[in-house]
C-alpha cells in the first residue's frame, strides 16, 4: 500500500507541475511568436519580452537581480527553451539589453571629394549622404575628416576602426584614393608600399571584433582630378566613391535584423549603388534554411528524419531518381538581411560544399510563385532562394556542409588602377592594394573564412 501511495503522489506532483504556471506558458508562447520563425531575438523582440516580464514580475523573480532584469539569465532561459524543443533551435541575440548604437558619419574632405558635390552635378552624392543620415534612427552627426591637400588614411582608419567603441557605428564617405603629403614625382610603387604599411599598422587584432562593409557608389563628378603625381586634370562624368561602415560584429548583424535599422542598411536600394564587400573575421550570419520535400527541382526518393518540424535538415533513405539516375534536392535559404551583394550570393563558385560523396550546388535561384505550394510553405519559412543540390548517389550517412566563402570579390580588382594619369569613370587608384591589404588583415585574423554555413545530414 505504501508503494501505491508513493506512486500516486508522484503522478499527482508531475501532473500539477506540468499543468500549472500560466504566466510561464504565456512567456513561452510569446517566445515562440517572436523567435520561432527567424530564430532571432532582436532589440524590438527584447522590448516585448522585457515588458511582459515587467507586467508579471512576481512570477519571474529568478529573472530579476536587485529589481533589474538579469539579461544573461533571460538569455539562458530562452536558449534552453528553444534547444529543448523539437526541432532544436539555436537562437541568435542581437542588441539585447544593449543601447541602440550611436552613428557617426565622417566625410573625407580632401580636394578630390569636392567635385562629387559640384553644383553642375546631379546631386546624387549629397542625396546619398542625406539618405544615410535620414534613414538612421535618432540624430547622426556628420564630421569632416582628413586634410584638404592629401588623405591620411592611417589616421582615418585608425579613427573609425580602433577608436570606434562597441556601441558605435562609424560611416566614412570617401573616394578611397590614397595620397601622401608630398606626391610630386612619386613612384606609384612607393604609394602601394605605403598602403601596405598603413594596412598592416592599423588593421591588427581589432578586426576580430569589428566588421567593415565597403559599398561602392557611383556619383557625378565635375571638377579637377588629382592624379598620383599631383598633376591636375579636369574631369566631368561619373566616378566611384565609397561608403565604409565599421561596426562590432554584433552591430553589423543588427543593422539588417533590427527593424528600425533595416531601411538604413538596405544599401542596394541607395541611389548610385554599384557593389559591396563585407570584411569580417567570423561567420556572423545564421540564415534560415530547410530542405523542401517536393519541388520541380527535386529528383530521387527520400524521407525526412524523425523529430524535424518546419526545418528539414536531415534526410534518410536518399535514393537516385529512376529516370535520370541522379539525386537533386531543393534547399530553401533566406539570403535576405545579409550585407552581401546579390551577385556574390547567387554565384555558385563562391560556395564550398563538403561531403563524402560528390554533392555540388547546381543552381541558386530566387523562389518563385510555383515553389510556394501549400504543402511546402511551412518549410519555405523566410527563405528567399532555392539552392539546387545535385549528387550521383549517397553511398552512406554523411554530413554535408555548405559554406559561403569570405572571398575578396572580383569587382575590387576590376575597379582598381595602378595609373590614374588619365582619370576614368570606373577605376580608383590603388584600390586593390588598399582593400586587398585590409582584406588580408581580416583573413589573417579570421577564425572562420566564411560568412555562413548550412549543415545537412543525408543518409541512404
Amino acid at each position: 500500500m505504501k508503494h501505491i501511495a508513493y506512486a500516486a503522489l508522484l503522478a499527482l506532483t508531475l501532473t500539477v507541475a506540468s499543468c500549472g504556471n500560466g504566466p510561464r506558458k504565456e512567456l513561452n508562447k510569446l517566445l515562440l511568436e517572436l523567435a520561432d520563425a527567424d530564430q532571432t531575438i532582436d532589440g524590438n523582440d527584447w522590448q516585448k519580452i522585457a515588458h511582459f516580464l515587467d507586467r508579471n514580475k512576481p512570477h519571474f523573480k529568478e529573472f530579476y537581480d536587485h529589481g533589474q532584469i538579469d539579461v544573461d539569465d533571460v538569455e539562458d532561459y530562452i536558449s534552453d527553451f528553444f534547444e529543448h524543443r523539437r526541432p532544436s533551435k539555436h537562437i541568435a541575440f542581437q542588441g539585447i539589453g544593449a543601447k541602440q548604437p550611436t552613428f557617426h558619419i565622417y566625410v573625407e574632405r580632401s580636394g578630390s571629394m569636392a567635385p562629387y558635390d559640384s553644383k553642375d552635378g546631379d546631386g546624387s552624392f549629397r542625396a546619398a549622404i542625406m539618405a544615410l543620415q535620414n534613414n538612421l534612427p535618432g540624430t547622426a552627426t556628420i564630421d569632416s575628416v582628413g586634410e584638404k591637400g592629401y588623405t591620411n588614411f592611417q589616421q582615418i582608419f585608425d579613427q573609425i576602426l580602433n577608436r570606434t567603441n562597441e556601441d558605435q557605428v562609424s560611416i566614412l564617405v570617401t573616394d578611397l584614393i590614397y595620397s601622401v603629403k608630398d606626391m610630386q614625382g612619386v613612384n606609384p610603387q612607393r604609394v602601394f608600399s605605403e598602403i601596405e604599411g598603413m594596412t598592416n599598422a592599423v588593421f591588427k587584432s581589432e578586426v576580430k571584433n569589428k566588421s567593415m562593409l565597403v559599398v561602392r557608389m557611383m556619383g557625378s563628378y565635375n571638377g579637377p582630378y588629382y592624379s598620383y603625381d599631383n598633376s591636375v586634370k579636369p574631369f566631368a562624368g561619373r566616378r566611384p566613391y565609397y561608403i565604409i561602415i565599421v561596426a562590432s560584429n554584433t552591430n553589423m548583424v543588427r543593422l539588417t535584423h533590427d527593424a528600425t535599422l533595416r531601411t538604413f542598411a538596405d544599401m542596394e536600394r541607395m541611389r548610385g549603388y554599384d557593389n559591396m564587400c563585407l570584411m569580417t573575421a567570423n561567420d556572423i550570419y545564421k540564415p534560415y534554411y530547410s530542405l523542401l520535400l517536393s519541388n520541380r527541382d527535386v529528383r530521387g526518393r527520400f524521407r525526412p528524419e524523425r523529430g524535424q518540424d518546419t526545418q528539414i535538415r536531415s534526410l534518410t533513405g536518399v535514393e537516385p531518381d529512376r529516370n535520370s539516375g541522379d539525386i537533386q534536392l531543393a534547399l530553401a535559404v533566406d539570403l535576405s538581411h545579409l550585407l552581401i551583394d546579390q551577385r556574390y550570393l547567387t554565384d555558385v563558385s563562391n560556395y564550398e560544399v563538403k561531403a563524402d560523396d560528390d554533392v555540388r550546388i547546381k543552381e541558386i535561384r530566387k523562389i518563385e510563385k510555383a515553389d510556394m505550394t501549400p504543402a511546402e510553405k511551412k518549410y519555405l519559412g523566410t527563405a528567399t532562394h532555392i539552392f539546387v543540390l545535385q549528387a550521383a548517389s549517397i553511398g552512406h550517412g554523411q554530413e554535408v556542409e555548405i559554406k559561403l566563402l569570405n572571398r575578396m570579390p572580383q569587382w575590387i580588382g576590376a575597379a582598381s588602377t595602378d595609373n590614374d594619369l588619365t582619370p576614368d569613370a570606373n577605376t580608383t587608384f590603388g584600390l586593390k592594394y588598399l582593400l586587398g591589404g585590409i582584406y588580408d588583415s581580416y583573413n589573417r585574423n579570421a577564425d572562420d573564412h566564411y560568412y555562413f554555413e548550412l549543415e545537412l545530414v543525408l543518409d541512404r
Partner: protein
Amino acid sequence: MKNAFCLGMGVFITLVFLLFPSWIFEAGYYETEFSNEMYNENLYLVVAVITAAVAWGGAALFYYVVNSVSFSRWYHWLLTLGVASVLTTVACYAYPNSVFSELGYDFSSQLVGFCLIDFLAAVALFVVASFAMRWWSSNCRHTPIPE
C-alpha cells in the same frame, strides 16, 4: 518474496513508462508535426501520468476499496480494466485536444490514432498494476488468474 518481486517489477515498468513516455508512444504512433507538438507541449508526460495514475488507481480500487467477494470474478476485473482504459483514453484525447485548440492547432484525427496506442498502454499498465498489488487483497488476490 515472489509478491515483493512482482510489486517491484510493476513499479519499475511504470517508472520506465513515466520516464520515457515520448519513446514509448512514438514507437507506436508517429506523425512529425503532431509528435513534435506533443513533445514541445510536454503532453507525452501528462498523458503518461494520467495513464499510469488511472491504471494504478483503478487496480487499487478493485483490490482494496471494492475488495468484495461478490465482485471478484475475472469478468469483474475485466470490466474494471475496460472502464479504467476507456476513461484514460477519453482523458488522453480531451486534454491534449484542449491544449492544441488553445494553440490553434487541429490534430483531432492524429489524436484518434494516438489514443488507440494509449488505450493499449492503459490496458498493459492495468495488468501490470494488478499483478503488482493483488497479493495483499483479502478477497480478490485470486483475480484474474488464481494464485
